[in-house]
């Protein structure tokens, strides 16, 4: 793959999200290391944001760095923006006491 085509990084092979290394437009295909073909970002997104590689059901783990970084709180589709609107943290939740 030409380095100029790469727009994201899958930090760990276990990850179900990729992180954008530049901004992408809607319908742009995710291209990076170990990223399966055919996954398109459903929205235009800035650098640093995450896109789902697969369908993730509510309550399922979000994996980045091969580690759990949170849990889905709604159905996430491949190509969806993964961020504070659809994932929650499992830590520091004084609001749940």
């Amino acid at each position: 793959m030409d380095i100029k085509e790469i727009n994201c990084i899958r930090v760990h092979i276990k990850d179900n999200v990729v992180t954008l290394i530049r901004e992408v437009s809607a319908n742009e295909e995710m291209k990076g290391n170990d990223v399966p073909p055919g996954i398109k970002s459903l929205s235009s997104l800035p650098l640093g944001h995450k896109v789902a590689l697969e369908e993730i059901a509510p309550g399922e783990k979000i994996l980045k760095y091969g580690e759990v970084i949170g849990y889905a709180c709604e159905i996430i589709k491949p190509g969806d923006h993964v961020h504070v609107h659809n994932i929650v943290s499992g830590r520091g939740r004084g609001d749940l006491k």
Partner: protein
Amino acid sequence: MKFMGYKRPDGSVGVRNHVLVLSSVVCANHVSQRIADAVPGAVAFCHSNGGGLLGKDIEQTQRTLDGIAINSNVAAVLVVSLGCEGSSAERIVEKTKASGRPAALVRIQECGGTTATIKAGINIVRNMYEKSMEQEREEADISDLSVSLECGGSDATSGISANPLVGWVSDRMVGLGATVILSETPEMIGAEHILFGRTASPEVSKKVIDIVRSVEEGANLMNVDLRGTQPTPGNIEGGLSTIEEKSMGCLAKAGSSVVMEVVRYAEIPSSNGLVIMDTPGFDVESVTGMVAGGSQVVLFTTGRGTPVGSPIAPVIKITGNPDVASWMRENIDFDASTVTTGEESLERAGEKLFQKLISVISGNLTSSEILGHSETGITRIGPSL
């Protein structure tokens, strides 16, 4: 490996040769700053503490001020006191003298007010500065160095490029026998298991778990979701969604070295190698604590861009965000965005960052030094009384 530094009577080695005007209480800040501004080569350390503190809080502030005074970048110290504060100006002077450095004290209430104290202080600091100019850099070993690691204004690039790059340099410095301080306890929440597996002893592992649990339980007492404070609104805009994600990125700064020791805020570590200091995630307070703990230089990553510096230690700013590298370039010392885009390998960029670090400890100024940044903050434990 050798470098050229300023040897102090207590055996430590500085990378700068500052005459320090140290305010012992918020009420002495203005006078301290005016004295330092009047003498080239003098720096002021001002802060908002010193009064109304209780128990462990006053101990912590005092430990911080003591540590700042004997940081090896400091050649001589003038302590400026109001005269009735809770922090002990005498203790700072005693500790500084015990380290073999010249130290003096002026009290605003004894000198007869602002103008008289500024005048008296300028005379003392001018003499200290003349003396400090006589000292030259000498050959020293890199193992005399303590390097602080910090991330502030992080975005998602920090965790994937700038922080791993700092981790590469951190491992190299540990290999050369230096001390490296990792801090920001809230940014270990959700990643503590990574550290747990690589400590020098079960006691160190237990301490790591204890400090992380303590900060998480403290935050939970506020009955709110940590998100919005950690990660911050700026972190969230930069793509970080949870504290776990931020923590995993934060820990990359520590490379893969073994954690030798866990120390309190502003405590001077007893071991070389990788050490954890228990500090807040708030970067200015964290850097102040590590510099009080003896660090002579700071590796500071930022994805959103932050200008902050330190009056005592050079702060090297590293960004993995290409937009920040160009838009805020006057505040950035090292552009790591080539690692983000994959144009440059971690090893190649790591070697360049290592050379940058060597050039800064040898005397080349950082962006924050050139621009005059000297932010400080001493973290608090309890309420003001």
